[in-house]
């Protein structure tokens, strides 16, 4: 799992703050390696972070 709290700031002023999380199942139950699961976690988290903009 990977949980990230994102803050968008402009001129030292917080515009928005939101949390995103990728559950453990996102990494995959049968995906072979740590790298593959981590890639998937990172990708899902990044997708949710940008969607929150």
């Amino acid at each position: 799992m990977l949980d990230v709290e994102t803050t968008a700031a402009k001129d030292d002023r917080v515009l928005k703050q939101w949390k995103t999380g990728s559950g453990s199942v996102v990494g995959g139950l049968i995906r072979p390696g740590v790298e593959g699961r981590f890639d998937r976690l990172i990708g899902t988290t990044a997708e949710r972070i940008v969607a929150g903009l």
Partner: protein
Amino acid sequence: MHHAMMMVTRAVLLVALVSGCSGRTPSPSASPAASPGAVVPIEPGASPGDVPLSVDETRLSPERRAAFDKLSGSSRLAAAVREEMARQGRVPAPPVQLVLVVTNFASDRPRPACGLARWQAPTCWTSRRPRRRTTGC
């Protein structure tokens, strides 16, 4: 009189039911936009590479931080976010900067939940002993 009280009780129950349903909010993980109304200016023509972006992993425990570092988590997360900005066409207008604080990380393979089928969780099935029935008969 009794009939009127029953009607009032029903009306109260109906209002409680309706307000309970409409008041339901999605969990934070399901909906990334946790601050409704907040606006981050988007500039379609901006380059994701120009957005100041930092990753803070200091909230992780030393063990999890070491595991995250070993996988080059910070740089990969920053790169993935920039890539996603380009893909979704959502790039914050300068001088907006993003700070990503990693609050939890676990890289290990999730354990199968017991109660799944035999092929999904063989360890549960091999270690499970038959339960003795306690029906009281």
